[in-house]
């Protein structure tokens, strides 16, 4: 396995979706190639960063609209309140 093949298989490896023989080739390459080892670490870092992105917040008008719709729904009105 070469580096350019290695980088294409990283997600499949992390998802444990590589067939056994390909997986051992992948791991063998990993143990021999510092560049790909760092690549894998960076890939994991990227995934972990994506999971830690600060959350965006809902806009004021959207919140108001939805809470109004909920109040209307709760009072037995039709849920399909639309914008005036």
């Amino acid at each position, binding site marked *: 396995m070469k580096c350019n093949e290695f980088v294409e298989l990283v997600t499949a490896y992390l998802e444990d979706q590589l067939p056994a023989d390909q997986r051992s080739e992948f791991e063998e390459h990993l143990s021999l190639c510092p560049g790909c080892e760092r690549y894998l670490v*960076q890939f994991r870092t*990227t995934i972990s960063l994506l*999971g830690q992105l600060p959350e965006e917040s809902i806009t004021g008008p959207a919140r108001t609209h*939805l809470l109004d719709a909920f109040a209307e729904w709760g009072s037995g009105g039709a849920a399909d309140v639309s914008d005036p």
Partner: protein
Amino acid sequence: MASGTRPGSEDPPDDTRAPGSTPFAESELVERLRAGDETAFSELVERLHPAMVRLALTRVRSRAVAEEVAQDAWLGLLRGIETFEGRSSLRSWLFRIVTNRAISTGLKERAHLPVEDGELEHRDGRFSQDGWWVTPPTHWADEVIDRITAPALAGRVHEAIAELPPGQRAVVTLRDVEGLTSAEVCAILDISEGNQRVLLHRARTRIRAALEQEVIP
């Protein structure tokens, strides 16, 4: 991270589920919604609405339309909550409503999804003809992870996500940002496991490359 994860050792591949994504206490939440508990609804809206807008944006052109689609999905939730059987998680169900509505809205406004491009950033001279690194990746210092909380780097990641083709954007948002499982994502987007993995891989590849540029100017 460099010391903690020693690839190739015995540590099994993780399922890459985003950390910090705790499952809802679903049945309780559904009961509270049915009972008209505004706090329950409000908390759910605060938590999921922005992601729903982002998901809708992978199918429709403008943020305003995506906003409408997401708001509409909430009304769909209210209409359907009585009959919700919990066969999928509430969150999956909402994302699925968003996807369906965004698709039909997108078709109406004729915003066809661009065809997924198969081109990967790896063909750009990082590898020699023989397939070995020309410029191997360098070590990222641990502060990279801390810097994600800095608005600038988080902003860059959001930009990188926004620049992805729609399919990749939808998958990486649901899998890595929202922390859904691959089975859930396949069901929400109605794609195969293999297709999901390809889209996810391309998205992660591009975002890694964007981070690399950010980290090593």
